[in-house]
């Protein structure tokens, strides 16, 4: 598998290969940008459909100078994170409960599995009816969406903790909270983090839709508002912001994995 890494050419030019490795993921986006700019300048792509990259950059600068951009970003991020904390927190707690206590599984799991099959976005009409287009509506939708991945992966993680380790822990006199702290939680953590990472992606998707449909602030609102005035450059700024924020959330999740799972050879950073 690592044949190419050991080839003599690579050994002779290690610095160049590191550089190439760093640059490689950016080749395709850069090419796309160049083609895009060229098509806009040549008039093939009318700015009514898609503005040129240069127009996007200048409207980004203008929006951030006026402070409008950061206000929307702050509002959206706050919504996303508070929904994530509420939904993820409840998912984690219920997952721990149903996986650890048999009665809780019997009582709750069937219900949760049924509700899970309803797409959170299908609830939008009802949610608007219940909460109006307030902050609570968005919080509810995001929390509901991120709940399930965290819940399911927590449940699965606890159920798949190595039986041998549990048995070993018991022969060392561990039970109750110490057994939980030393063996069950760390054993379930890789799976829980998969759920967290998945949730962070879902969090933005749900928020985008919720903000697009009904909001008075936020990136989704900014984008929809721009549509009214055919400001395609601002629309593209909004869309790109989601991409960047999504990537940041993913990096955060990856960072958590690297730190919490540093004992696991699969997550150890190559030096």
């Amino acid at each position, binding site marked *: 598998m690592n044949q190419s890494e050991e080839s003599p050419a690579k050994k002779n030019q290690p610095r160049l290969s590191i550089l190439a490795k760093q640059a490689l993921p950016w080749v395709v986006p850069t090419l796309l940008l160049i083609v895009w700019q060229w098509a806009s300048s040549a008039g093939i792509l009318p700015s009514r459909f898609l503005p040129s990259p240069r127009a996007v950059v200048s409207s980004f600068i203008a929006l951030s100078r006026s402070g409008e951009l950061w206000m929307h970003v702050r509002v959206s991020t706050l919504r996303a994170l508070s929904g994530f904390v509420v939904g993820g927190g409840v998912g984690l707690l219920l997952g721990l409960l149903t996986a650890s206590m048999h009665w809780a599984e019997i009582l709750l799991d069937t219900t949760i599995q049924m509700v899970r099959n309803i797409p959170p976005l299908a609830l939008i009409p009802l949610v608007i009816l219940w909460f109006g287009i307030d902050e609570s509506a968005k919080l509810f939708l995001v929390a509901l969406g991120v709940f399930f991945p965290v819940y399911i992966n927590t449940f699965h993680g606890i159920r798949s903790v190595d039986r041998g380790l549990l048995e*070993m822990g018991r*022969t*060392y006199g*561990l039970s109750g909270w*110490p057994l939980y702290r*030393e063996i069950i939680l*760390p054993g379930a*953590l890789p799976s829980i983090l998969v759920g967290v990472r998945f949730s962070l992606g879902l969090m933005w998707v749900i928020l985008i839709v919720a903000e697009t449909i009904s909001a008075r602030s936020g990136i989704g609102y900014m984008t929809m508002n721009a549509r009214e005035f055919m400001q395609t450059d601002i629309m593209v700024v909004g869309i790109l912001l989601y991409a960047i924020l999504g990537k940041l959330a993913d990096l955060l999740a990856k960072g958590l994995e690297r730190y919490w799972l*540093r*004992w696991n050879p699969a997550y150890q950073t190559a030096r």
Partner: protein
Amino acid sequence: MPVAASSEEIAAADERCSRGVSVGIKSVSIAFGGRTVLENFGIEISAGEFVAIVGRSGCGKSTLLRSVVGLETPQTGTIILGNVREHNGKPDVRVMFQDSRLLPWRRILPNVMLGLEPALIPRARKVLAQVGLAERANDWPATLSGGQRQRVALARALVHDPNLLLLDEPLGSLDALTRIEMQQLIEDVWQNRGFTAMLVTHDVAEAVSLADRVILIEGGRVALDEVVNIARPRTRGSARFAALEERILGRVLQRRPVAENRW
């Protein structure tokens, strides 16, 4: 002064001898889903004795060990461990499994410290040094070799100063050289500390080289109970060793000894 020293020595020797605890297993029967694993099984193990239990796969030798530590509950019969002076008379029993069962998310020293007060760190370090891994205290288990991991598992058991050490094929997955090293290590600590040891193994040579007594389980019962009368340290090459190993192995494989056939 010399008198005092010698009385201390005697006390130390006495302490060593009293570390081990006797094990009395009486008419134990265990069945899993209708399949009888142990039937009316009984053995007596005296304090400080090293007993090896051999037998074919699935003969119930691991089940026996697991029921001694309470991981299985026999349907009938009793398992009685002798009393000890410390821990309110309750003997300390530790298990070494076939796989090391180290916690992958704890570094080596915290693994050895499992279930111990933080105040006992110096003792854990000392035991880790005894198994030759003092300098690996801050490493992750994933970076150790299989043999090293088993040595950590041994240290984890020894740090509790057990009265009874149960060894469930602990060397089964190690290479031949590491096995011999580990056998010597186990024999050394057993001789130094005087705990009672029960070793389950597939390897008859291992049983003969370590144990005072080799017990063969077959069909859920004791099929052979052989005292190993070879002075320690034992050399595998010796004629008595080879003869005993051959006899036990022959019995395991249900082969009649060559000598008997001839006469």
